[in-house]
């Protein structure tokens, strides 16, 4: 918690002079205002922990303004706005489980699963005979995300992607 807002640590740089006090230079995103700020703390300093809870919910659909999720046990539904979904919108797959962070009952962060499987909607055919593919090529996925895939992967195939790095992992297991 910082200035009354729950925050997310984006980067934490450990700074320590040869003989002396260690500091942490942290880059923080305020989750409500979306502001990114930098702050320096002495190592060992503490701040109030934010009273947030993470819940596992299945993604249902979007109406363009909100993204709807459902608790598969209670069937309770929750709607997250654009600010909460952010850039992760490109990794939302229907029925996939996402981690939703709630603060005072309202969703403030939507985190997709580490790996998702998506269909390629468009990619160049690639070179014939190249099965190893070193450089790769860009491919557009059904969610709108663009990832680099090996040359042998074609339009219509389903691929597995690491949502943390945005990198192609493999073809989906059938």
């Amino acid at each position: 918690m910082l200035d009354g807002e729950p925050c997310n640590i984006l980067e934490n740089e450990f700074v320590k002079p040869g003989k002396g006090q260690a500091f942490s230079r942290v880059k923080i995103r305020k989750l409500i205002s979306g502001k990114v700020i930098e702050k320096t703390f002495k190592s060992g300093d503490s701040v109030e922990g934010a009273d947030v809870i993470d819940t596992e919910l299945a993604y249902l659909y979007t109406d363009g303004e909100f993204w709807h999720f459902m608790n598969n046990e209670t069937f309770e539904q929750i709607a997250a706005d654009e600010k909460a979904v952010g850039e992760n919108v490109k990794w939302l797959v229907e029925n996939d489980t996402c981690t939703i962070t709630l603060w005072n009952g309202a969703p403030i962060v939507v985190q997709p699963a580490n790996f998702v499987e998506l269909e390629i909607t468009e990619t160049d055919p690639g070179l014939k005979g190249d099965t190893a593919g070193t450089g790769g090529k860009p491919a557009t996925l059904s969610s709108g995300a663009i990832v680099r895939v090996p040359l042998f992967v074609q339009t219509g195939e389903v691929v597995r992607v690491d949502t943390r790095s945005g990198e192609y992992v493999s073809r989906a297991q059938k």
Partner: protein
Amino acid sequence: MGTDNWRPSASIEVLKQRALVLQKIRHFFAERDVFEVDTPALCHATVTDEHLHSFSTQFNHPFTPHPCTLYLQTSPEFAMKRLLCAGSGAIYQICKSFRNEETGQFHNPEFTMLEWYRPGFNHLQLMTEIDELIQLILGCDKAERVTYQDIFKQHLQCDPLTATLADLKTLANRYGYAELAATENNKDTLLMLLFSQHVEPHIGQNRPCFVMDFPASQAALAKISSANPLVAERIELYFQGTELANGFHELTDGAEQLRRFEEDNIKRQSKGLEMMPIDQNFLAAINFGLPACAGVALGIDRLLMLAFSCSKIDQVIAFENSRA
């Protein structure tokens, strides 16, 4: 955890180059008649410095009823000085050192340290030798030498040796550390913050830079200068944003050494940290007689980062801690 975590964090090519650098270092010291030693990593006592955190473990001795606490050394300093007291002459060591609570771009909780001692040298003569080693490994220019006071004044327009706590708080406020400065009443903490954030990034960009004459309050195990009691005969070497080495004209006064250890423990107590047992074997050795000498500790991993233009320590060690 990714499935690739079994892989080394450094490339095999860097690891081969690393081996060659270690060979060069050993050759450098062999030519100068400085002999290699190997002292314990696991000891009954450890450093008292409030800013260093030792790993500890329990030793279950087969013939005694109670386990005893042993500490992994944060540097081989105490044991090497005991060898000097016993008449070893010039010595060096390349060993693993361990520091708890340290991890980051330049830090791994275990790292490789090169430490060496030169009886009969003062810190100025030792600087020349460090410089020669650095030039040999990095192929860089001769290092420049500046005093802590001059370089601090040049970048922050404030005299670090005469500034009051209020002066330093004002300065910290101006650089955006208002919250930290509001509750901080230790001058050295503010000096360390300002120096590491607003001086270090500007020095040693084109050639290595030695900073000499640190404030006496940051002496660690260095002699206080007889010419100026406000400064200690302590040196630090910086190059391209990396702090590479820390050296002292070594403190040889046993009573003063004990006083510093006790002072450290009082500081620890006031911060709610555990007090550390004082190394009695080390004190006994100093009281027996440490020859006048200068010594330095140099981070081998950081030297390799500079040699191979790596931005993270992970890229020069086989398995950084999260993969270990």
